[in-house]
């Protein structure tokens, strides 16, 4: 599984490098229109061909990485910022707090990202912020559950009980003993959520709920490709490959990290 970690790490790093590189360099400006050379096939000049406006698809896929990375990262950050404290609180306090947090998680989890995004879009227009909130809302309960489950398991350990018996406050034990011990697991879960977020972002922008033109986004490129499926079928290939590579990288990284951090706790991370 070392190999998996390496491949996953390499793909993820590659995605980040591509996103960073696209900030300063792309083969062509991603919004440069060239009507005469519209819908050209892949060639030495245009590696992935050109789109209906004659824009370079490779450059657009490169710049699309920014959108995927930024939205996924911020959405998961939002989910983590809500989910982890909520889960910690539930495990630390127990009782009614626990019950409330967990039922709240059930409730939030019942709103699929598409549903939230549809409503947010109707309200304040499509865009990256809409996507971040929609995906974040869906991510928070997952992290809350993971955190609560893992933290509860630490609380019944001898050292946690001992610390409590020695007069430490609940909060102190939670911060000093519990949190550091579940950090590895959380990192794994966050990685997995990142890959789900990339998928969700692509889906949302595919149905027009995501980034607005002219900012290239993988999902919207695929949507546009669908109308040209009879005349320029290759347009539907490259953005999809980019999504798959990004998700594959994050998944393999997550799996690899899981094996590394805690081989025994595979199942609780599911």
């Amino acid at each position, binding site marked *: 599984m070392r190999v998996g970690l390496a491949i996953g790490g390499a793909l993820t790093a590659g995605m980040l490098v591509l996103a960073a590189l696209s900030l300063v360099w792309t083969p062509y400006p991603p919004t440069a229109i060239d009507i005469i050379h519209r819908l050209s096939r892949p060639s030495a000049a245009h590696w992935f061909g050109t789109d209906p406006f*004659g824009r370079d698809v490779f450059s657009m896929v490169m710049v699309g990485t920014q959108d995927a990375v930024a939205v996924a990262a911020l959405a998961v950050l939002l989910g983590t910022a809500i989910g982890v404290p909520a889960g910690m609180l539930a495990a630390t306090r127990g009782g009614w707090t626990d019950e409330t947090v967990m039922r709240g998680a059930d409730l939030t989890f019942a709103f699929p990202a598409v549903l939230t995004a549809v409503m947010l879009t109707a309200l304040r227009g499509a865009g990256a912020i809409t996507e971040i909130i929609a995906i974040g809302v869906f991510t928070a309960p997952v992290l809350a559950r993971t955190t609560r489950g893992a933290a509860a398991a630490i609380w019944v350990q001898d050292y946690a009980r001992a610390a409590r018996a020695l007069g430490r406050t609940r909060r102190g034990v939670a911060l000093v003993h519990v949190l550091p011990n579940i950090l590895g697991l959380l990192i794994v879960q966050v990685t997995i959520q990142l890959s789900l977020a990339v998928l969700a972002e692509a889906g949302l922008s595919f149905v*027009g709920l995501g980034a607005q033109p002219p900012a290239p986004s993988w999902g919207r490129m695929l949507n546009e490709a669908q109308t040209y499926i009879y005349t320029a079928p290759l347009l539907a290939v490259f953005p999809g490959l980019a999504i798959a590579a990004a998700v594959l990288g994050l998944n393999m990284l997550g799996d690899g990290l899981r094996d590394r951090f805690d081989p025994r706790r595979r199942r609780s991370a599911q």
Partner: protein
Amino acid sequence: MRQLGVFLVAALVIGTGAAYAAPPDTLTLGLPLEPPGLDPTAGAASAIREVTYANIFQGLTHIDENGQVQPDLASGWEISKDGLTYTFKLRSGVTFHDGTPFDCSIVKFSYGRAAAPESINAQKQLFAPIASVDCPSPDTAVVELKQPTSTFLYDMAWGDAVMIAPKTAAGNKAHPIGTGPFVFSRWVPGDRIELLRNDHYWGAAPKLKAVTFRVIGDPAAATAALLSGTLDAYTNFPAPEAVARFRQDPRFTVAIGHDEGKVILALNNARQPFSDVRVRQAIAYAIDRKAIIDAAYSGLGSPIGSHYTPQDPSYVDLTGAYPYDPAKAKALLAQAGVAPGTSFTIMLPPPSYAQRGGELIAAYLQQVGLNAKLQSVAWAQWLAQVFGQSAFDATVIAHTEARDLDIYARPHYYFNYASDQYKTLYAQYVAATDAAKQADLLQQLQRQLSADEPNIFLFALPKIGVWNAKLRGLWTNDPMPINDVTGAYWAP
């Protein structure tokens, strides 16, 4: 040859796979949008008319393929000298699909209902000139007007002015009952509307036994449905990018006709910097219309130079007024004191001409130093925000009403063009009685618009028809968004 055989077999298999497709007395037509209800007197959506106009519902007059007014349920009429009294001779022996006889009381009811205070007719203003409807005999209707209205016969041909029966009027939205050659049979929401031939039709019986409208708005799905034979025809085909594919295929007829849709980049003339004519002209110079037509509409559609399409009467070709010239655009912007990097928002409604056109326009404006942000909006929001409140900088939109030069003379229309000169010209045009004088004024109006460029006039939408090569009698042109299939039939 063998390949062709295989192809034909494949086509047959697919054809029968779609089952029920096309024995030669039925027709399945594609619809880009599902109608919200089937009552043309209670909604503005063109999809309602595309299904019901002339097929289910008929008015006293109707519009033919060339946009001319023809007699329909009124076999003829007389207009008094003062233009205030219209005496319609009604056809006899006409009944509604439920057996209700059509006579003058129906005319009185239909017009009265549309003009009533509680009316929800989308074009209520068409009925405003009517003072009274009298019935000296069952087959004669006398309509008195409050003021002479030269467009009255044309107005009464609109889908909003069709004849409806008192008993069934309230139910027409879900189960339309009219006097037309086809009877409503079934509506499966989200999927199809089925019509059957009216065996008691008053006119020449239609050749088709059944007509089905299928809602297939997605361009790729519409293409697939035609290729597989699921659809026999799409008279308003939503996928210009697939037209090339059908042109090469002898199984299909591709008919590119005229449409009244004028695609414009509407500018809010009340807002900076668009209140300055030089800025509007600069934008006109900055945009390559030909490229927009190529990329946004696959090269179909014709450039326009004002708010008027080439098939309209007294058309002047003004497309050369602002040739693509970014240098000149920059110079004009500098003259007007517009700093490079000035930004504004273009609102884009859902249709692909707006989405793609908007993206291209933003790219062209970028080249002359204007930073146009794009914002996609749903129709509901566009209507409320852009049209209703004029709360916008710019928007890409198609105006589909025919010969609607009047909107530039209206006070507080959403793009806020305010030109006394234009208003005066328009008033002269309305008052003009002499045909030559009218034509001259129409040309002056177009020139005035081109000079002021209140909006950037981009191109006239084509009406793209794609249908089975054996089909006859479908309309190539679109004088109104309608699908009159009364005369459609299959060649043997």
